[in-house]
C-alpha cells in the first residue's frame, strides 16, 4: 500500500493508505477529524471543504494519495487555543446556521474567498460560496456572517500590522 505523509491542522502524519481512500475518509476515520462532514456523493454540496496547500478543496473529491506531502487545514485547525477564528465567531453571532451540517465547509470556503478578496461585496460572497449548499438558512445570514467575519479579519490584521 502507498505510504503518504500529510500535515493536518499542524500535525504531521505518516500513513499507509489504500489508493481508493478518499481524503475525507482519511481525515474522519483514521485521524479523527470528524469536524469535516460528508454531505453528498457527487462533489456538489461542499460540506467537506478543507484547505489543501492553502486553497479550498472538496475532500471527498481528492484521494488521500493525492494529498501526499500536502498541508491540510480543517475546521478543527482554525481556532487558536480557546479563541475561535473570527469567521467562526461571525457565524455564531449572525446565527448563520440552523442544522449546522454545511457550516464547516461554508467557513472554509468563506476564508478561501477572503484570501482572494478581503472585502467582498454581497454578490462576490454569493459567487464565492457557490460550491457550498445550505438547505436550512436561505443563505441570508451566511452572507451577513461572511461580511462580518471579513470586517473582523481586516480589523485584526490592522492591529497586527500597526
Amino acid at each position, binding site marked *: 500500500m*502507498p505510504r503518504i505523509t500529510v500535515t493536518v491542522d499542524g500535525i504531521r502524519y505518516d500513513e499507509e493508505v489504500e489508493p481508493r481512500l478518499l481524503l475525507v475518509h482519511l481525515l474522519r476515520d483514521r485521524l479523527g477529524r470528524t469536524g469535516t462532514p460528508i454531505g453528498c456523493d457527487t462533489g456538489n454540496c461542499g460540506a467537506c471543504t478543507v484547505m489543501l496547500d492553502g486553497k479550498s*478543496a472538496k475532500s471527498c*473529491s*481528492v*484521494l488521500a494519495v*493525492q494529498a501526499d506531502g500536502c498541508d491540510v487545514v480543517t475546521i478543527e485547525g482554525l481556532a487558536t487555543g480557546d479563541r475561535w477564528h473570527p469567521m467562526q465567531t461571525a457565524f455564531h453571532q449572525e446565527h448563520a446556521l440552523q442544522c449546522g451540517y454545511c457550516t464547516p465547509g461554508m467557513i472554509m*470556503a468563506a476564508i478561501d474567498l477572503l484570501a482572494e478578496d478581503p472585502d467582498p461585496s454581497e454578490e462576490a460572497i454569493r459567487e464565492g460560496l*457557490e*460550491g457550498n449548499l445550505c438547505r436550512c438558512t436561505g443563505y441570508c445570514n451566511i452572507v451577513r456572517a461572511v461580511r462580518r467575519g471579513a470586517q473582523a479579519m481586516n480589523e485584526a490584521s490592522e492591529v497586527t500590522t500597526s
Partner: protein
Amino acid sequence: MIPAAFDYVRPQSVEEACSALADAGDEAKVLAGGQSLLPLLRLRLAYPTALVDVGRLAELQGIRDESDHVFIGSMATHYDVVRSPLINAECPLVAMATATVADPAVRHRGTFGGSLAHADPAGDLPAVALALDCTFVVRSGSGEREIPAADFFVDYLEPALSPEEILLGVRVPKLGPGWGYHYEKFHRTAQSWAIVGVAAAVRRSNGSIEEARIGLTNMASIPVRARAAETALRGVAITPAVPGETNGGADPVRDACGDAAADTSPPADLHAQPDYRRHLARVLTHRAVLTAARA
C-alpha cells in the same frame, strides 16, 4: 460510496506515465485533478483497474506564449487559467468559459487538459476549443502527434486518444485584433452542467460581422460548431449596436442565429428535451454573438 479498488501509479515523467499506461492495459485511467473522475468512481460509474496520476508532472504544467498561439499545459488548473494575464489578453474566451466551470474549490484542482480529455459534451471547454480551432498535442511511447480540435472529440466521453497516450497540452491560436468573445451558459444551479452553452468569437469590421465562430455545448454527443449560423452571420450588421435600442424591431443577428441548432442532435434528460435545447441554442447563440460583437 467508496470507490472500487484500483492500483495507483505516480510516474515521475511523461515517459514513465506512457509506459505505465501501456503496462496497465485498456482499463487504466489517467488521473489529473480528479474533479470529474473521482465523482464517477464514488458513484461506481467507472471501474478502472489502475489510475496513473499525472497531476504533479512538471512537463504538463505552465501557460506559455509561443508566438502565434498560447500553449496551455494540460495540468494548468482552471484557477491558473482564469488568473493568467496571457490567456486573458490573447485568448479571453478560454478564461471566460473557464470562470463558469463548477465552483472555486473545483476550479482549484480541476485541470484544463483533464476537462478536455474527459470529452464531456456538457463540459464548457470542449466547445471553446472547437470554436477557436485549437490543436491538441499528445504523446505516447511511440512519439508525439497533434490532433486538431475538430478531430479530438470522437463520441460521448471519448477523445481521440489511444489508451497509452497522454495529452501534453493545447495550442490556442491568437486570433489577434478585431475579435470579440463571449461564453453564454444556461444552467439551473451554479455547479450544474450547462443545459446548453454557446462559445462565440466574432470578428467585426465597420459595424458588421465579418466572421463568426460558434461552438455549442451539450447539443450532441460531442461539442459541435453551429456552421449554418456562422455562414448566415457573415456580413450581418451589428444592430442594435448597444443594448436597449429597439431599431424598429429589426434584429438581423437574431435572424441569422435562427439556424444555430441545425445539424445538432441534442440529448434528452431530466433537464431538457431536444426541442427545448434547440430553442435554447438559438436564443443563447443570439445573445453570445451579439455580446461578442459589441465587446
